[in-house]
């Protein structure tokens, strides 16, 4: 079954077309990599699925229904930039999330905090960038959602922390739910992807199973991507 259906979606800002006739189906139970260069339209597409922007043309359906209250309750979104109040302590943010989201699992959040060695008493402002990224991921993955959308979850963190983040994503991948991960750090993440979607200049240029693409191109996804978008 398809979790999300994107039908002929275009999005323009002023006269500039950021997304151009995008058609895409997101199946359930899969980890999907949304891969593209900077400015390709990844974040715009993600914001449309989250209902933070509305399409200029076309429509997006979540489980057959337009984006709205139901989709927002069931999509857990990690934005590219943090929106947390940095003066808050970790434990206060967790309480805040538990209050805000019905499907937030406080126990799960504390388990993950322990696993990733974060201190609940710490103020966010006192945390390193990598620690803040981990915290955001914990908050997002602690919701019992049908779809998780992670916009650049690895950017700005060191390789060891990236591995931690990838492991956390994997071990919290719930049966039947899907995860969309947008990134340009392909080589770090590609081993966990079921499907890959290449986006360039606002268009979907390729959608394939990750292993089929490796077979066809006789190379890694990273390499295939580099070849396709060589400047």
């Amino acid at each position, binding site marked *: 079954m398809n979790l999300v259906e994107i039908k002929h979606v275009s999005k323009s800002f002023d006269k500039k077309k950021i997304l151009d006739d995008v058609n895409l189906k997101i199946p359930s139970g899969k980890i999907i990599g949304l891969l593209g260069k900077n400015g390709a339209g990844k974040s715009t597409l993600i914001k449309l699925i989250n209902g933070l922007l509305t399409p200029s043309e076309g429509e997006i359906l979540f489980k057959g229904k337009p984006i709205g209250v139901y989709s927002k309750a069931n999509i857990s979104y990690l934005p590219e930039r943090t929106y947390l109040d940095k003066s808050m302590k970790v434990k206060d943010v967790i309480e805040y999330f538990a209050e805000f989201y019905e499907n937030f699992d406080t126990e799960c959040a504390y388990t993950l905090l322990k696993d990733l060695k974060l201190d609940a008493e710490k103020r966010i402002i006192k945390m390193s960038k990598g620690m803040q990224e981990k915290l955001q991921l914990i908050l997002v993955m602690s919701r019992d959602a049908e779809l998780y959308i992670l916009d650049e979850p690895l950017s700005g963190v060191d390789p060891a922390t990236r591995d931690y983040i990838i492991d956390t994503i994997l071990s919290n991948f719930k049966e039947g739910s899907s995860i969309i991960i947008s990134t340009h750090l392909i080589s770090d993440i590609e081993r*966990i992807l079921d499907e890959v979607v290449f986006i360039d200049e606002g268009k979907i240029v390729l959608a394939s199973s990750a292993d089929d693409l490796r077979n066809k191109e006789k190379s890694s996804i990273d390499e295939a991507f580099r070849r396709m978008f060589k400047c």
Partner: protein
Amino acid sequence: MDFTFDNNIPIYIQLLEYMKIYLISGVFKAGDKLPSVRDFANTFKVNPNTMQKALAELESMKLIYTERTNGKFVTKDEKLIEKLKDEYAMTLAKSYFDGMKKIGLGKADSIKYLERINN
């Protein structure tokens, strides 16, 4: 133990290799019950869907089988595992001789080198 994967080769094929070695070396013996797909995926740190694909491949090779409600088991046919071991050993031997051939050493010389690494 940490498992490494080469991004240039489909992940399920690499999982298949790890699993074959498990069977050949007797980590899982004929008739043994296998861990769940989830448990395997956690061990290898791979996507459960990819793990499932590798196990399905093993199943189509009759090396493992599924009992409807009980999960997956290693084949009871020990000959099949012996055959797998034989093929695998043959592949390793062949790649050794191929490597020696590249540096100009024939089979007889290659065997002499093998004998030198007894201890």
